């Protein structure tokens, strides 16, 4: 894994494009070391995602009409979709957190999709990016739960539906699964994005090796691309819906 593109190309044969090269974080200007304040390609693509998100919703809602324009109906569809999901999963009280979940969903959704463009960088394929979002969700949920239910929030670890003998064991399992949440929440997204985009680059490498006669890899890459678009959407949806599920625990905790 330490070997880069040059070494692979120098070996002759093998993949000319290394599939993991697309995930390298490099500074946008010059090539110095990467500090926390360095403007890197991650920064650029995050900014593009934010600008695209803002632009889309600002343009869509500028000339609102009874008969929506195309962009307006896209925005309305996304808004209605997430609104319904939040209401279905967290109940009516959860709607207070709708803007947060909508923001998370749209940012992840656009980051995943922008990463599918050729030469683009998928910001959500980095655990550092997704871990920040998952930790934010984890802290929000924990604080909301403690604020609303006080110490009774710890009742989610004490499953009253189970027999008394089993409850300490279940409490242990519940505590572990509670603290594993941010880990699985972030790694699910990053892992899916990284694996999917690497698969596309592997097929692109096959096409590159075969040259003009690469019909099969190109057909395959088209199919994988379609699958990746589906996965990009589903992973953004899963991230948002799991946030809703965690919020539901915090909002209606002790009776479970």
């Amino acid at each position, binding site marked *: *894994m330490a070997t880069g593109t040059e070494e692979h190309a120098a070996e002759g044969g093998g993949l000319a494009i290394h599939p993991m090269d697309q995930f390298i974080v490099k500074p946008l200007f010059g090539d110095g070391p990467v500090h926390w304040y360095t403007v890197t390609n991650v920064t650029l693509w995050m900014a593009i995602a934010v600008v695209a998100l803002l632009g889309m919703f600002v343009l869509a809602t500028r000339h609102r009409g009874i008969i929506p324009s195309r962009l307006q109906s896209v925005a309305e569809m996304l808004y209605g979709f997430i609104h319904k*999901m939040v209401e*279905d*999963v967290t109940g009516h009280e959860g709607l207070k957190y709708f803007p947060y979940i909508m923001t998370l969903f749209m940012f992840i959704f656009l980051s995943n999709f922008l990463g599918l463009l050729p030469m683009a960088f998928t910001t959500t394929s980095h655990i550092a990016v997704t871990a920040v979002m998952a930790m934010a969700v984890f802290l929000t949920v924990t604080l909301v739960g403690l604020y609303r239910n006080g110490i009774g929030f710890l009742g989610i670890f004490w499953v009253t539906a189970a027999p008394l003998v089993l409850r300490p064991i279940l409490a242990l399992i519940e505590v572990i699964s509670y603290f594993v949440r941010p*880990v*699985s929440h972030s*790694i*699910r997204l990053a*892992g*899916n994005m990284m*694996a999917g985009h690497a698969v596309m680059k592997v097929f692109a490498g096959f096409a590159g090796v075969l040259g003009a006669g690469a019909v099969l890899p190109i057909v395959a890459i088209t199919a994988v691309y379609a699958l990746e678009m589906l996965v990009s959407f*589903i992973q953004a*949806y*899963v991230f948002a*819906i*799991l946030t809703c*599920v965690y919020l539901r625990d915090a909002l209606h905790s002790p009776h479970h």
Partner: protein
Amino acid sequence: MEGDIVQMGAYIGAGLACTGMGGAAVGVGHVVGNYISGALRNPSAAASQTATMFIGIAFAEALGIFSFLVALLLMFAV
């Protein structure tokens, strides 16, 4: 020489960790298969359970992703 053996062990372990994907595949297939068999019996109730299906998929998938995490740790952290 010693380092090579350690690295070989790490790579073999990373490869073995990929078998965890099979478990995730079984889990996700089970969830979706049962959802569809339920949906075909009672199509009117199917739409309301799609979100539940995705939550189930996400939880089943998480454990497969942990095996990916183990592979990554073996490749880059050990």
